[in-house]
Structure formats: C-alpha cells, structure tokens
C-alpha cells in the first residue's frame, strides 16, 4: 500500500496543468497499491490554489504559503517535512519538478525515478518505465529506498479530470533551510501568450534554422500557428539563434510534446529534436531536403521551400 503526495506546481497563484498530470500518476500508484493520495499546494497563493485542487479526489490538500519568487532551496525543506508521512512523492517532470524534487529526495534519502512515462504495479510492488538516451531506449526501474520520488512526463500522463467532492485542506508549517539564504530571487520574465501551452497543445507547429530570422517566425510561422489554434515550438538551432524564446525549444532538452499533429517546418530532425516530438500522433515535415532525418518519423512529407509553402498552407487551413 503506497500513500502518495503530489507536489503541485503553481504559476501566479494558480495550479499549472502539469499538477494534474502528476495527480493522474499518483492515482495510478494509489489505486494500484490500495493506498491513497494527497496534494501539497506550495508557494505564493497556495491557499487559493488549494481550493482549486480540492476537486480531484485527494484525501486532503496540504497548504504551505511561501511568498516571493520560487527557488528550490526555499521549498525543499517544507516538501521534505510533509513528505515524511508518505511512501511516494510525485511531481511533473517540468523545469520546476526537475529542479525541486531531487533536492527533496536527497533530504529524504530517497531514490528518484525521473521523467517516467508509465507506472507499473506488480503484486503491490511499484516500478516505472522511463525514456532514456533521448527516447531511444526505455528502461524499467525499481526504487530501492524506503521512500520513492517520481517525476512524470507531461506528454505521457493526461491531466486528471475533476472528480467532484471537496478534499479537506490543512495548513502546514513552512520549514527554513540555510541554503535558501544563499539564493536571492531577483525576478522572472514570464512569457505571456494567448496560445495553448506547448506542453499540452493538440497541435504544435515548430520552426527550425531554415526560418533564418525572428521576423520570419513572426510573418511565416505564427499565422499558421494561429490559423490552426496551435502552440508554437522550435528546434534548438532556432532558439540558439534567438529567433524565438528558449522555452519554445522542443527536444531532449526543452519540452517533450506528443500532440495529435506536429508540423516540423524547416527542421532537419537531429536526434535531440526527435526525442522531443516523435511521440506525436501525426507528424508532418516541410523541408527542401527529402533526405533530412526528420523523414524517419514523418507521416507526411512535403518537399518544398517553406517560404513558398507555409503561407499557402495557412490560407488553405483558414478555408477549412
């Protein structure tokens, strides 16, 4: 029987959808082992977010209000203290989860299964599948320590649906940590976008080096993105060149996405990029070079110059 604590991820006082992906995994662990799960709402606005998180069937929602910007040093001691009462701690393998949970695990002496794609329960015993080697290998791993820490790949765990009811909530004390005094949070530039989140969009349109400039992203890619109601992504080369912001990078580093439709425009398809998108249901490549490695994963390939093709595609999509 495994009792599970989900560590919520808040952004501006609201739970990110990544939290619900972690809830899904927590439910699988709890149901598979006959245990239960709780949620820890932590950060600025934890109280309000706890209300939002009360409708997902958790035994209770713990609240720890911590003002100011996030650093893992400020949160980890509180999460670890709360985690002492649980067998498994779960968060999404977002930048936040990958930053915070290993620090918590080290405090608890727990092993970490990072970025898992599946949960298995066999005779009450837990194991996890996780992609390795840029998605070229899947390993099944057991955690040998008393406590287990798990981060889950967003694209492999649907957000949990609201289950009705209202979990009771409980305030917990914020723990101090000397390491937290060593890091001063100066600020964050949050990118606002009306578009869907890259992490859970149904359609993703990504551009690569062949776009040649930030202006071309704006003038060529963005109209197609918006015509499809899609999220915009990019290859590492396009992010490095400053055509788009780094958080749009899809790949081994950056985001892993698995939308129903992924369009790779002017992206050759380095193995590190394929790692971030080859789980997509339908993949379209638009590229001048039909030998480009993106062909290994593309369902549809249009060999063409993107500057001629993409505006025409945008117009055709608008007419649907």
């Amino acid at each position, binding site marked *: 029987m495994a009792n599970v604590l989900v560590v919520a991820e808040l952004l501006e006082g609201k739970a990110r959808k*990544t939290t619900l992906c972690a809830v899904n995994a927590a439910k699988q662990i709890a149901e598979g082992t006959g245990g239960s799960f709780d949620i820890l709402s932590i950060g600025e606005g934890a109280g309000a977010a706890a209300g939002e998180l009360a409708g997902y069937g958790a035994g209770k929602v713990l609240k720890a209000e911590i003002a100011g910007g996030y650093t893992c040093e400020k949160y980890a001691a509180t999460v670890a203290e709360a985690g002492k009462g649980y067998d498994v701690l779960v968060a999404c393998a977002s930048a936040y989860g990958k930053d915070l949970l290993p620090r918590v695990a080290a405090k608890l002496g727990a092993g970490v299964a990072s970025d898992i794609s599946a949960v298995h329960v066999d005779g009450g015993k837990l194991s996890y599948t996780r992609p390795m080697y840029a998605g070229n290998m899947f390993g099944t791993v057991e955690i040998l320590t008393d406590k287990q820490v798990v981060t889950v790949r967003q694209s492999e765990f649907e957000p949990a649906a609201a289950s009705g009811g209202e979990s009771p909530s409980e305030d917990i004390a914020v723990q101090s940590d000397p390491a937290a005094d060593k890091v001063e949070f100066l600020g964050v530039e949050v990118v606002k976008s009306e578009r869907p989140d890259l992490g859970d969009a149904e359609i993703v349109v990504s551009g690569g080096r062949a776009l040649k400039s930030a202006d071309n992203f704006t003038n060529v890619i963005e109209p197609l993105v918006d015509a499809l109601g899609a999220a915009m992504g990019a290859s590492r080369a396009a992010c490095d060149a400053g055509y788009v912001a780094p958080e749009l990078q899809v790949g081994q580093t950056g985001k892993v996405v698995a939308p129903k439709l992924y369009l790779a425009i002017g992206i050759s398809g380095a193995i590190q990029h394929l790692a971030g998108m080859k789980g997509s249901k339908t993949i379209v490549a638009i590229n001048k070079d039909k030998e480009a490695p993106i062909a290994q994963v593309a369902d549809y390939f249009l060999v063409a110059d993107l500057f001629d093709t993409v505006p025409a595609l945008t117009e055709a999509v608008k007419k649907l």
Partner: protein
Amino acid sequence: MKILVSIKRVADPDNASKLKVSSDGTAVTSEGLEWKMNPFDDWSLEAALRLTENAAEKNARVGEVVLVSIGPNDEHTQRIIREGLAKGAERGILVESDDGNLDAGVVSAVLKAVVEKENPDLVVMGKQAADGDSNVAGTELAEKLNWPVINSAMRITTADDGKTLEVRRELDTGVATVKVTGPAVITTSDRILQPDSVQNGVTPEGHEYAKLEVGGRYASLKGIMQAKKKPIDQMSLADLGVDTAKSLNYTKYELPPARSGQTTFVEDVTDLVDKLHNSAKVI
C-alpha cells in the same frame, strides 16, 4: 576561482538510435558506438573555462578548472578527461567505478567527497547525462553539501571572482534571474554557449566569444600537447569512503516501438491539406 567540472563518458548521443538491448533484456549495449564526452558536460566545461580566463588575452588562465570523471579506468574515460584538459582545464581526477554501480545517488555522493577534498568555489556540471537523461545528480550534490543549486543556467555574471553570481536560468514559462552566494552548484542549459553567456569581471565587458553551434570550444594543437603533461589523479570509491548503495535498480530495457507506417510524400499544399483533413483527420 576554482571550479570543479564533472564529465561523463556516454555512448555517442548522435547515434543513440543504434543502441541495442542485451539478449536477456537487462542491459543496454552500445557496441560499435564511440564513447563521447557527455555534451551537456562539454557545455558546462565551456562555461567554467570562460569563468576562469581572460578572453581578451588569448584566453589566459586566471583560475583553475579541475575535471572529475567517474567511470571505468580505461582508455575511453582517460581520453575524455584528456580532451577536457586539452580545451584548457588544469587537472583531472578519475574515480574508478563500473557504470553498473552508479546512479544519481552514488554519483552525487562521490562528487561530494571530491568537493570536500578539493574545496572548489563552484561545481559546474551538465544538467543531465545524454544516456540516463535524469537531471538529478547536480541538485542532489548541492543538497548533500548544503549548497544552493542553479539549474539550467543560460547566463552567468560575477564581479567578485565567483563569490557571488547573478544567473539567468531557463524555466518552462520564461527566464528567472537569481543572485547566488557561493559556493554553489550550477548546471547549464544549451544557451550557455551563446557569445555573451559569461561575464567574469576579468574578460572585458562586452567581449563576444565566437559563435559555437553545437558544443564547447575545440582544443588547440598547443592545448593537446600541454594536456599530455597535465596530471590525472586516480582513485577508487573506497579511497573516497563513500556509501555505494544504489537507490535504483533497472530490471529491463526495451527499444522504443517503431513508428507505424511509411512516410507519404505529398505533392503540394492541396494534397497535404486533403490528407490531414480527410485521411488523418487531424485538422
């Protein structure tokens, strides 16, 4: 400033699709693949070198970079350490261990023991290894040392030789800026290779490094010659007295399922839209 940089050897990440699974399914075999320096560590080494040099004076060294690699004591691990020494690092340490005896918990314990011997001002390391893709060891190391950690650093600025650093780090939703008081662990993002990613207070402000496309700098011929004479200390896990109990056990490996179906080459935009709308039904 003294910086410890951990470097791991990994099976050639650009050919990871050629990896195989052993017949009993319990091991990954990388036969035929060259061992390479983990690219994430290569980027961290680049950041560490920039922090400890004057780029305007032919990269004159003004600090010390010590490399540490944990792995089999063989020609491949040694070659990778030499490669880092040839790029400019001062010394190497090879902690001998079979790959099978390592996980993030053991690696962070080993690195903690090395830090306690070496007393660096900073540890700069890859945020992940291209084989395990875990993103765990750096943060665990920081916690075990009671040090702060800054993950996914894209820009590092220090004016006081690394005692305090202003770091920009990548998030899912933007970029955060933090001021950290060392000693600290820093893991680096792809953007640490940008021409202006490091300001160390020695290299004149506004200096721009040459654009690096994929990895860190190449070794010069002179660097390669000098590296042959630089020391590599060798030690065992027992020498360091670390707890070698693993916290993870991999029971099975499998290749990912192949994507079903062939690539359909479409004629033009009309054909593409027709296929996506009427066959795949995704738009």
